[in-house]
């Protein structure tokens, strides 16, 4: 009998626990249950799993908590891909972490439309002019600001000066035909011209995007974003130029399966001197060093994506993005205060000095020591136009299709026309 009664009690307890779990989340809405006592908890998710990011963010949170004893910051560094998956899952519950990594653009726009993100225009108005205006562009919609950038840079070619010299290439190519010539010269010397992580399709989309910018100009991309039509001569022409490059077979053996930052991936291949160049963003030197163990040091050089003859785009138009943090709808005011704190010149300099970021706060660029990053910073500063990464600028469905279709183009499975059609089809259905 007691056995049975105990069983009943257990069942009842189990039920209570279960129902308790189900309903518990909703009460937790405005982060930090103990707000009555003035105690605030801030969840901070970022993707800096590598050093110096990981420890700098923790130090900054500690310093902020010491200055504001009523604030507790939970810092979580989550690896890029895992972070994106995790965000999609928590977004479904209708609640995001108080501060989270964002790249702005289409993904942030979807989150704003779902009413998950805080409009911080007012909160940051007193110090927003310390940030470089172009880095804020991906975070601004309809005149309102939804995020604070911490690093803004561009994609360009990182090349091995020694290998270029060996192949007899005097100076970095400034036009597409000169670039193709350089690839041929490198091949003639038995040097792998380009490393590409074909296993991660975002790396390939840089080529197509830059070519589209050079051929059609920034207006072509704006137009496509507005009317969801990528099936235009400009985008097809961009695909054809990319085919010209692919047909020279410029990539390392097995590139279709290669990853970006693994020990035999794209970054390591360049870092080890096994390929002469890669098309990558401002983080490239750092990852080359991490993945290959040493990096190229002084042999590493940088040149912007070459101009395409007869194209409508300027060679000074820049393709890239700004990493930043957005704030969730219900986040406490201290969250924005923390962003202000890490956006001070001194805090920005900490990461800048390590070469981990391309600073967005005016004055922090003094800390840049690396000549390549300095050159990159100047190129961004003098840019005539700016285009955000396509897989960030568009909604995830369209961005994913761009990456996927371009990867198929590079693998020779799709024609330039089919690529333009496939992206258009996804963009049109997504907009319905």
């Amino acid at each position: 009998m007691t056995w049975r009664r105990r069983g009943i009690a257990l069942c009842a307890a189990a039920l209570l626990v279960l129902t308790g779990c189900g309903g518990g989340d909703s009460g937790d809405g405005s982060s930090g249950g103990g707000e009555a006592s003035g105690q605030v908890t801030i969840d901070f998710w970022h993707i800096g799993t590598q050093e110096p990011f990981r420890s700098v963010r923790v130090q900054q949170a500690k310093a902020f908590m010491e200055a504001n004893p009523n604030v507790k910051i939970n810092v979580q560094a989550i690896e890029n891909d895992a972070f994106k998956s995790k965000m999609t899952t928590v977004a479904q519950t209708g609640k995001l972490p108080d501060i989270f990594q964002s790249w702005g653009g289409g993904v942030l726009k979807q989150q704003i439309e779902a009413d998950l993100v805080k409009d911080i225009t007012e909160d940051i108005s007193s110090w927003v002019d310390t940030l470089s205006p172009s880095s804020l562009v991906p975070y601004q919609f309809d005149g309102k600001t939804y995020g604070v950038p911490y690093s803004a840079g561009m994609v360009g070619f990182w090349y091995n000066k020694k290998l270029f010299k060996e192949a007899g290439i005097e100076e970095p190519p400034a036009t597409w035909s000169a670039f193709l010539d350089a690839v041929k010269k490198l091949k003639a010397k038995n040097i792998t011209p380009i490393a590409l992580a074909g296993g991660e399709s975002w790396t390939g989309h840089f080529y197509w995007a830059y070519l589209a910018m050079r051929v059609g100009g920034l207006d072509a991309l704006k137009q496509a974003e507005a009317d969801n039509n990528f099936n235009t001569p400009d985008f097809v022409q961009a695909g054809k130029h990319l085919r010209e490059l692919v047909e020279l077979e410029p990539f390392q053996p097995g590139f279709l399966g290669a990853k970006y930052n693994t020990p035999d991936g794209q970054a390591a291949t360049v870092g080890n001197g096994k390929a002469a160049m890669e098309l990558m963003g401002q983080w490239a030197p750092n990852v080359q060093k991490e993945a290959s163990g040493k990096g190229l040091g002084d042999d590493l050089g940088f040149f912007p994506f070459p101009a395409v003859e007869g194209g409508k785009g300027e060679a000074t138009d820049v393709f890239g993005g700004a990493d930043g943090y957005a704030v969730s709808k219900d986040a406490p005011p201290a969250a924005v205060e923390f962003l202000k704190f890490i956006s001070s010149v001194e805090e920005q300099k900490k990461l800048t000095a390590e070469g981990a970021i391309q600073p967005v706060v005016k004055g922090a660029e003094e800390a840049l020591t690396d000549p390549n990053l300095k050159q990159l910073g100047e190129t961004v500063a003098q840019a005539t136009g700016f285009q955000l990464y396509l897989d960030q600028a568009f909604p995830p469905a369209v961005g994913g299709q761009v990456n996927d279709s371009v990867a198929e183009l590079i693998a020779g499975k799709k024609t330039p026309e089919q690529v333009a059609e496939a992206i258009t089809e996804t963009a049109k259905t997504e907009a319905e």
Partner: protein
Amino acid sequence: MVEIRRGSGGRASSRPLSPQEGSSRPVPPKGGAGPGRERRRRAMSAWTTIVLFLLPGLVLFGLLVLLPILIAGYLSFFKWNGLGGIPAPGSDRFIGLDNFVRLFNDPIVLGDLWHMLVLVVLSLVIQLPMALGIALLLNQKMRGRAVYRTLFFAPYVLSEVIAGVLFSLVFSPEHGIANEMLTAIGLENAAAEWLADPDIVLYSLFMVITWKYFGFHMILYLAGRQSIPKELLEAASIDGAGPWRQFRYVTLPLLGPTIRVSIFLSVIGTIQLFDMVWVLTQGGPVHASETLAVTMYQFGFQRNQFGYASAISVVMFLISLVFALGYQRWVLRRDTEGAITSMRDQR
């Protein structure tokens, strides 16, 4: 964890009840006050106990298994980017069967179905016979038998992720052991871009799966083989049956139930294949090694098309369900029927 233990505790405590009931049945009740009511009361209380003990398990099963299946089924009729809550039944996000129409015209999904078929056939034709052969070999008396058994079983114990990372190193195009070994023994021409060539990658994947899982099937077969009485084989050999005939007419038929179960597990595992593919290739290059589960993940969690991803998961579920039920009905019937009748006999 706690709930699971509680569930089994429930089963354990209900066991002493039934013999009690069983033994009470032949004994006629002493009091004349309504034997029927007494029996009913007992049956009632037995039912209350059963229901109460099953409840936690049922609630968990409902919440964690049935509900997600229903939600996925529901979502498969919508176009939803995962934000702003699950769409209401009447919302403009409802698109009827469009997701399913798209799915059966999507070359990626059709490719997935083809890869599934190839992997199932290869498993049945190569992996399982190999496991059977090795199991029979390791059943012979030989030196170091236990060592071999452990060695062959070891890959199965390894986590999928670890195995995947290991093989991505083995198959690395320039420094991978696979190519270095082939070159070292003079087979440079056989060296390949194992994971980077769309025409080869599926077979490389199959190699890894075989390496990982044949040990599991081998253990199943070993257990099955050891339950075959020695006398039968002795009798066969006295009747003049050679090793092949002994295998064909004694071992194989008696291993039947084991083989049928192992085929079942292998096929279901192949339909749901995800982790190994994800770690090794993420379905690439250009979808050449993609499986339904990988496609579902990519559309759901990377492209935020949760409606379409749900439709893919529904198709995957239906394929598994139809196969499982059909297999139970047509192939496993003999085995399960035996089990049930013998249970009845025991009763």
